[in-house]
């Protein structure tokens, strides 16, 4: 059973990948959302951890050929596989979402780089507006002495120039922030790519850890079979799983040659 689970592991991981990809297309809600997958992984981990910790104390109380020895090891191995699948699903989904975010950032960086010039243009235009309004105000001021009624419009122009000043200051602020934004976005892109690499490494680590636990349970099961074989060869059914051993004949009585 354990070797069968080990052979099944890559398939289970593949299924987890497809499930994660399909879930991405759906909304990030329900059982396929990252939090739900994380909860599922935590639950599977807790289940496995509990079984794993209590395995040896349970086996100690059983006779070597008690069928419960085999089923107990199988049960923990199965729980470990379930945990690996749950973790793989979670990290697959995290990887897919992270990649999508990297792509989104890349797109925004490209657009902001192209827009950098626009912020400068806006600032130049706002400054030109201020200069033009100030010039109009100065030109009208010269006429106020000849036509006092123009004093009102001239004051209005001065107030508009004050508004233009504010607009120019805002445009200046945006030009500065626009430059910072591109730098920040590039940094964000680098950070997100680094995180992506770390997630991919974590995915590999989860798979490797799953295989190591699977190998351990196979070895534990093989030991249980050898122990049973020593006590009662007729009751030992299958050969040890990790490395097939030649059927071990019962040792000859001491002092005789084989």
């Amino acid at each position, binding site marked *: 059973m354990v070797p069968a689970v080990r052979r099944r592991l890559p398939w289970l991981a593949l299924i987890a990948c497809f499930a994660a990809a399909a879930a991405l297309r759906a909304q990030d809600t329900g059982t396929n959302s*990252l939090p739900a997958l994380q909860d599922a*992984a935590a639950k599977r981990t807790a289940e496995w951890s509990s079984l794993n910790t209590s395995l040896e104390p349970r086996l100690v109380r059983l006779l070597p050929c008690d069928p419960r020895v085999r089923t107990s090891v199988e049960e923990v191995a199965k729980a470990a596989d379930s945990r690996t699948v749950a973790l793989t699903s979670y990290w697959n989904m995290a990887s897919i979402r992270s990649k999508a975010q990297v792509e989104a950032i890349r797109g925004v960086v490209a657009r902001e780089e192209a827009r950098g010039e626009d912020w400068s243009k806006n600032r130049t235009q706002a400054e030109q507006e201020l200069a033009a309004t100030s010039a109009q105000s100065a030109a009208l001021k010269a006429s106020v002495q000849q036509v006092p*009624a*123009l004093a009102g419009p001239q004051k*209005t122009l001065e107030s*508009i120039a004050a508004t233009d000043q504010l607009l120019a200051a805002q445009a200046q602020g945006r030009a500065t922030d626009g430059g910072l934004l591109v730098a920040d976005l590039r940094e*964000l892109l680098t950070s997100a790519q680094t*995180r992506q690499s770390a997630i991919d490494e974590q995915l590999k680590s989860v798979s490797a850890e799953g295989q190591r636990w699977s190998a*351990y349970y196979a070895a534990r099961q093989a030991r249980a079979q050898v122990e049973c074989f020593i006590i009662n060869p007729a009751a030992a059914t299958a050969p040890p799983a990790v490395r097939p051993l030649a059927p071990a004949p019962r*040792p000859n009585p001491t002092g005789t040659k084989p």
Partner: protein
Amino acid sequence: MRRALAVLLVASAALAQQEARESWRKTDPNLERDAATAGATLGARADKAAAEAAKYFAAQKASLDTLAKDTAQKASAVPPLNLRPETSPNLDAYLARQTTVLSSSIDTIARDPDRGIQQLRQALERERAAVAGLSAGSKGSQTAREAVAQTAASAEQARVRTMELYRKLTASLQQSAQLTEQAGTAWAGYYRSLSDAARSAAVPVTSSVPAPSSPPVAIPPTPVARNIPPVPLSRYVGSWTYPTVGAHFHGAQPLSADLVVQDENGRASGTLSARFKLPPGDAGNPVVQFTFEGALQSSRDQTFAVTTSGGAKGTLELIPGPAFNLLEVNFSTDGKPGTIRQGNFLLVKK
């Protein structure tokens, strides 16, 4: 596709405002310089410049609004990843204990020549090797988990910083759009007052002190005496409607408005029918309908008494707009609560 459309919208709005700006600035660059000398022609020139300015400020506001919307959208284009740290049990103690137990068992049976026991020793060694693999791998797994936690935290910090900058830019663009709208209104007022000032300078309406250099015969009859507005009657009379594009209003926002003004022997009369947008949850009456009637005055702004369909009384002001085909309406009534009692908006001639 959506991204390309957004880029196109921003570019098209920016181009429209640039063209409108150039057009406005080229309309009459010497208007202010000629203000004292242009006389009666200044009013028409100011009206023309006002119309171009209105186009520019509408385009500029639209451009800033589009940019603000686009910036806000980009801020939401990078949502948080919300990775939670993985909680894995610490198995170091467990693995160490297993190793000790297995090593002890191996040592105990190491010298036993029994073939079965030797097979058991081999099995125990394989198990111990698997445990050793788990111990070694657990350090690598821990490192991988920590790397994810660290890089995810760094990426999230960078994301939050960037989003904050986007929010700042969006707020700045929104403020500029608001200021631009105010500037547009101020420019309209400026051109109107410039036009009024030029007209009053060119044709004094009343004066208690006779101009010493003007011969009595040269004084034209005052418009007041004839009760003729200083602008053509066509600036008031006719059918007017609330524009669907480039609308301007202050206070309650009209959804539609129709005004008809007739003139007969120096008296104006007409009807106004308008529907306003009410705030969400307001169950008031959004419709305003009234008739008005009164003598035309010699001033630019015409004021009439109104009676609404509900019997409320009030006043209506008709103010020629910055262009010949624009008319500003300003009304207030003493209607009941739950009715629209004030309105101020610009109509366009049908």
